[in-house]
């Protein structure tokens, strides 16, 4: 029943024609104090919620080719491709769980983080009103929904990481991370006798295999694994999310780690968990690892599981003020 769909997304021209930004919009980076990025951030969210990155689509198509035509795994991957085309064409959310909204901002000296934070929060509230994001921020104990994705007291949502750099551009990356995949993330403390993992790369490998087997299809496999080795409990988990921004199919700058990622991806795809845990050859689309420094007494391995609908996008405001999305 499933014809093999070729995923061709709408052209950049069509996407631009639906933009909330007026044509030719430019930022004036000479006057950072007056800068207002509310609209560009809204546009970033619109594209991120409805349009999957090309490298993720390519990985899903490659996975489908590794399955027997007509099998459950094949049909499921084909449904995923059809979903990608529909969301892109209709400019609707790829998934009803539009996730925790996580921003990574790099900015030049002189930009007010406080002002930009307000603009980002306004953009998220507007995007929620436009039904690009589901209201996903509820009070922990009562479950009461704030309705606009804002954590009103502690400003814990949306999550925003700021970093000043010595370049003139502004870069804002966003990731929409669903609850199902967030729930199957894991942090290990090595050595871990329960899985026989020591403080070396072989031990790290055991942690990752263990986490994927425990996750089964629950994180909406085939997933993407972000892995941080080292750090403290907080920085380690943070890094494991940030690495998911790296494009699939790009090389890890550390050759030993690059080889580790490739071998592990192949091995994990022999586990037989498959798309949604129905069985099959496509369990993981990629493993992205980064090594950090750590306290001599602590050795953490943190694993963030990203679902197949890995919604991430980077907006850059170049030195002359023009906006681009990647």
């Amino acid at each position: 029943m499933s014809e093999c769909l070729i995923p061709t997304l709408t052209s950049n021209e069509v996407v631009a024609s639906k933009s909330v930004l007026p044509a030719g919009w430019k930022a004036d980076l000479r006057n950072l104090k007056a800068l207002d990025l509310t609209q560009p951030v809204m546009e970033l969210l619109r594209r991120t919620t409805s349009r999957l990155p090309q490298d993720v689509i390519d990985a899903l198509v490659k996975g489908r080719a590794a399955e027997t035509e007509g099998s459950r795994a094949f049909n499921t991957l084909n449904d995923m491709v059809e979903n990608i085309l529909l969301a892109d064409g209709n400019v609707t959310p790829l998934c009803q769980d539009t996730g925790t909204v996580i921003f990574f901002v790099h900015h030049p000296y002189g930009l007010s983080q406080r002002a930009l934070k307000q603009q980002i929060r306004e953009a998220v509230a507007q995007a929620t009103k436009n039904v690009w994001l589901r209201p996903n921020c509820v009070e922990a104990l009562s479950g009461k929904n704030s309705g606009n994705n804002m954590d009103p007291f502690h400003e814990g949502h949306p999550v925003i990481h700021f970093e000043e750099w010595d370049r003139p551009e502004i870069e804002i990356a966003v990731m929409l991370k669903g609850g199902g995949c967030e729930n199957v993330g894991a942090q290990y403390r090595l050595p871990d006798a329960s899985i026989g993992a020591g403080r070396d790369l072989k031990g790290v490998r055991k942690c990752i295999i263990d986490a994927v087997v425990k996750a089964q299809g629950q994180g909406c496999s085939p997933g993407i694994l972000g892995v941080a080795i080292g750090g403290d409990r907080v920085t380690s988990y943070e890094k494991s999310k940030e690495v998911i921004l790296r494009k699939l199919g790009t090389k890890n700058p550390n050759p030993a780690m690059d080889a580790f990622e490739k071998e592990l991806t192949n091995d994990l795809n022999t586990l037989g968990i498959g798309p949604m845990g129905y069985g099959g050859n496509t369990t993981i689309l990629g493993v992205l690892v980064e090594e950090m420094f750590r306290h001599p007494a602590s050795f953490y391995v943190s694993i963030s599981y990203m679902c197949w609908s890995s919604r991430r996008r980077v907006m850059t405001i170049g030195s002359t003020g023009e906006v681009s999305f990647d």
Partner: protein
Amino acid sequence: MIRLTTPITEVQIRQLKVGDEVLLNGRVVLSRDIGHKFMKEQKPEWLKPILENMVIYHCGPVVRKNPDGTWTFVAAGPTTSIREEPYQADVIETYKVRGVIGKGGMGKKTSEGLQKTGAVYLHATGGAGSLLAERVKRVVDVKMLEEFGSPEAFWIIEVEDFPLVVTMDSHGGSLHEIVAQQSQERAKALMG
């Protein structure tokens, strides 16, 4: 591929086996966390005719209200089902539900409920929010919208060729158990 239309009979359900791919048509009722707690604890009578021989869908949709007062589902993929484990078997028995749609599978208590009443667990593709919303042809009604809020309300919808996989059948079979066991064995070899 098996085509099923709600309401579904027990005989039809008993024929389904783990691994079967199903295209579902007809009415489906959405319910998740608050709804399940409510059904188990309060057992409201008015839900009986709505749920008998019907299918429950674990889903908190993104819904748009149209200017003419009707509703459109914008994104409507499944949510993780295991959260309803404490309630599901009772709900199935009380309301004679024939199927539960969700993702991730459910536990032993639900499996026993499926066997006893004659029902199946139908797995939908997680993350396929747009595709599944496209297969929702009509929003028929919504109950408890004010009380529970939009993601938790009982939305009654009509679906067409809703793509599903039977991952738990009415004979105690579970695809989740089979895949878990096989992958655990393979993991042991990989960790070696």
